[in-house]
């Protein structure tokens, strides 16, 4: 019975896509891959229905005044503009040791394939590959601005990053909309952080009204490597961020930081998997959210500590404030520990807004709006400190 239902959903999803994409390709690339339903553990609190019935199409690959959509125009960065999934502009002056190129690949070599990653490759075979050469400290961040426009457009994008041995690289990815029409953005990061390298990916998600966004972040870390993922979900109707971090070399450090502040009926889901495969690694997860109005949030954090991964330090914290009675938050930390000499902790809290603190600030003459902003910023400060991205600090609450 349940198999039939799964098939039916998938069939509808693919049928809708067939309006603009080749039917036989869709069938072959998704063969054996299910369309997720809430029966699946990792999709229990997030429904994919909203994107499954639309005849998505590729939008135009250019846009007038594309720079005007850069949310951080003051940032001194190597800029790349991607319009509706197609590269529109790449800075010409690249610092020494930094390479940026496009690659054509319709299948990819992902170990953890699912229906969306498979379609991502098939619908847009071009990946953007960024690499930092061995021993190169790339001081300027690379900032990719993904601009989306047009009714029922989908952007299927991939950024593959290689941080070679002992290199340093920060890639910022901003996702914005040029208009309020319905759009589906599906983005993949595949990162290799080689021995002793440091890679940070910082995402700014601001697709706004009618923006449906899913990201998949895969990272492979070598010995002594540090991978940091920062995700701020500023707005967007529906957001699902999946990440898989594999710690494959000793003394690796993996940091996952997230901030989300959905309003109205927005939905944000951060689902993470950290896999400690070898000894002496550390992972730190810090996710904080403020759920306004009738919005909803999900945090699903899985940590594996494999039998060989002795002396692992794994920390996970998810804290939430639900502002109204209509908001919901589902938080599910999960540790699966198969080694005995490890230090692991996880914590999850969901509380209400501190009305007494609000009253205290207002009783000193601070307006309701400013007092709320102060308290929300204070709540997020710990994550902002962990992220160390100045551009996020001032822009969290404003607009």
């Amino acid at each position, binding site marked *: 019975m349940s198999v039939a239902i799964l098939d039916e959903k998938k069939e509808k999803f693919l049928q809708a896509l067939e309006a603009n994409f080749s039917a036989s390709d869709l069938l072959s690339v998704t063969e054996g891959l299910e369309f997720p339903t809430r029966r699946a553990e990792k999709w229990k609190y997030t429904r994919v229905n909203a994107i499954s019935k639309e005849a998505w199409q590729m939008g135009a690959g250019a846009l007038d005044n594309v720079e005007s959509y850069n949310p951080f125009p003051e940032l001194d960065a190597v800029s790349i503009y991607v319009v509706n999934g197609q590269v529109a502009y790449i800075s010409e002056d690249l610092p020494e040791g930094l390479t940026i190129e496009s690659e054509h690949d319709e299948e990819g070599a992902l170990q953890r394939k699912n229906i969306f990653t498979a379609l991502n490759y098939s619908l847009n075979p071009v990946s953007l590959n960024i690499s930092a050469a061995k021993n190169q400290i790339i001081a300027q961040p690379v900032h990719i601005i993904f601009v989306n426009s047009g009714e029922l457009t989908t952007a299927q994008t991939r950024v593959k990053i290689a941080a070679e041995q002992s290199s340093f690289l920060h890639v910022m990815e901003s996702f914005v909309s040029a208009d309020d029409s319905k759009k589906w953005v599906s983005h993949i990061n595949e990162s290799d952080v080689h021995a002793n390298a440091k890679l940070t990916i910082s995402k700014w998600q601001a697709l706004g009204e009618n923006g449906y966004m899913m990201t998949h972040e895969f990272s492979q870390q070598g010995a002594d490597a540090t991978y940091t993922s920062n995700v701020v979900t500023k707005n967007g109707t529906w957001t699902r961020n999946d990440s898989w971090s594999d710690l494959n070399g000793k003394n690796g450090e993996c940091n996952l930081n997230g901030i989300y502040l959905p309003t109205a009926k927005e939905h944000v889901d951060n689902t993470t998997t950290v896999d400690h495969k070898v000894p002496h690694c550390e992972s730190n997860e810090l996710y904080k959210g403020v759920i306004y109005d009738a919005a909803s949030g999900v945090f699903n954090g899985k940590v594996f500590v494999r039998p060989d991964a002795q002396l692992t330090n794994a920390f996970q914290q998810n804290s939430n404030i639900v502002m109204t009675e209509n908001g919901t938050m589902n938080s599910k930390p999960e540790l699966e520990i198969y080694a005995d000499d490890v230090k692991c902790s996880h914590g999850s809290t969901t509380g209400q807004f*501190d*009305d*007494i*603190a609000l*009253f*205290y*600030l*207002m*009783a*000193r*003459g*601070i*307006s*309701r709006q*400013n*007092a709320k902003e*102060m*308290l929300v*910023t*204070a*709540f997020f*400060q*710990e994550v902002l400190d962990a992220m160390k991205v100045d551009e996020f600090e001032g822009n969290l609450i404003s607009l």
Partner: protein
Amino acid sequence: MIKIKNLHAEVEGNKILKGLNLEVKAGEVHAIMGPNGSGKSTLASVLAGNDAYEVTEGSVDFDGSDLLDLDVDERAKEGMFLAFQYPVEIPGVSNINFLKAALNEKRAYQGLEPIKAKEFLALVKEKSELVELAGKLKNRSVNEGFSGGEKKRNEIFQMAMLDPKFAILDETDSGLDIDALKVVSHGVNSMRSPERSFLVITHYQRLLDYIVPDFVHVLYNGKIIKTGPKELALELEEKGYDWLIEETV
């Protein structure tokens, strides 16, 4: 300054204030005493505008404006100040930055330019020295890690910074040792002026040796049941409240 008429207020369906009348004129200091749970903090919260408390009847005139019609911050901007019985710890909100924001909001409300950084720092220095908190405020979150006495002194520091015309001190003396009590009283007395009034809520007559009131009121069961000169406090300390309560019923 403030004229409270027939004030009724409830919280979560419980009637707490049951027809309270009180007038405080400019320059006066009024003390309010009364047993635990009689409604003293409720009165303070209602005047400051805490919306957990619902006013069901009555009016409050604050220097010509309808106090109950103003939002919490507007009351503060109009010159109302409440020193909390239990000052709130707010991790992540800097004590100094928040005070600067408060001061500047008030100035904007009065049509004044934001205070200059240098002037603000000088003011912080002067007022924090007044309550012997100098040096304890830098890089600190609001009340975080403060001892009970420090929190109370921080309330008086904030009062001095914001320069209100009507200040309510809700048990600012409770739990203070004699040195801290002197510091707090000195802070308050240095602010006494013909234009400023105080409502001092306390359980202990001792405070009133330092902050000498013009009137002492007894609040019981949501009403003021007795008003007298400062000597009333001595009598209350000696005899307790029972004789007064019996007199009323």
